[in-house]
């Protein structure tokens, strides 16, 4: 049986959503891992950093969480090639931990945005998008005040050139550079995205497209 871990920071508020979404989408077992823990469960195939307001967004979104003990274990797992997904605040944490490039700024319109977004799947060949098959579109929800992806022009060119832009907004809700909604690292095993697959994993939620992301991540385990 495949095994996933969801990291719980103080102020995470999508940790249980992630657990439910992964269990129902994939049948994997999901362990919750407290941010003070220094080890991940043995044989973990997927690590998810959930959305929320870790440490109350003190200093910068994700900045304090990036320094927490568990992140050393997450970073080491990423180096071993374990699949890691950071969703929303989890994406901010991955950027603050310098596991992914760039940063998330305050939304261009200064407003918290909570709505469904239509995404282009820019790279369908990643271990997080394989289950979408020939589809090049997905619908998920966003809920963020600081989801405005920023990186310098050279980094953006590199991300696009290397196929590291995975999801793009069709109608940019927050001012993100080049409409970027989600990126992977150079090795292709760490994904960060602002939209929530964990809030879009069953038709009853308005979209089941998020389930395919979790299925992709664990199918390659």
């Amino acid at each position, binding site marked *: 049986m495949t095994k996933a871990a969801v990291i719980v920071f103080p102020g995470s508020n999508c940790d249980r959503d992630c657990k439910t979404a992964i269990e129902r989408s994939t049948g994997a077992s999901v362990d919750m891992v407290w941010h003070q823990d220094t080890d991940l469960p043995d044989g973990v195939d997927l690590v998810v950093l959930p959305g929320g307001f870790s440490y109350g967004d003190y200093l910068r979104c994700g*900045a304090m969480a990036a*320094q927490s003990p568990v992140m050393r274990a997450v970073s080491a797992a990423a180096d071993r090639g374990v699949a890691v997904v950071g969703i929303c605040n989890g994406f901010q944490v991955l950027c603050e931990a310098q596991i992914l490039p*760039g940063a998330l*700024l*305050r939304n*261009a319109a*200064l407003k918290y945005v909570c709505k469904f977004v239509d995404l282009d799947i820019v790279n369908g060949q990643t271990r997080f998008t394989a289950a979408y098959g020939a589809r090049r579109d997905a619908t998920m929800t966003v809920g963020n005040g600081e989801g405005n992806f*920023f990186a*310098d022009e050279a980094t953006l060119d590199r991300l696009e050139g290397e196929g590291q832009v995975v999801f793009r907004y069709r109608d940019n809700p927050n001012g993100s550079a080049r409409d970027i909604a989600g990126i992977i690292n150079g090795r292709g095993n760490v994904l960060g995205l602002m939209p929530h697959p964990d809030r879009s994993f069953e038709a009853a939620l308005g979209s089941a497209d998020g389930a395919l992301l979790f299925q992709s991540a664990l199918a390659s385990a």
Partner: protein
Amino acid sequence: MKARVEVFLKAGVLDVQGKAIEGALHGLGFGEVSSVRVGKTIEFDLTGDDAAAAEAQVKAMCDSLLANTVIEGYRVEVAA
């Protein structure tokens, strides 16, 4: 010793809070205002009495936590 760190968004990074404040100041009739940037100040005490060494330490703190150098710059002042 006392340390004072000012953290600002870099020049090329859009400061949407600054823009909103600038618009509000213009709305209040302060039309002479431009280029508003919002930052934060972090102050703390330090042990030791070597100001140069302390400044190097505070810069290391900025690079590792207090500022995100992807988007932010910082200024450090250390006083006895």
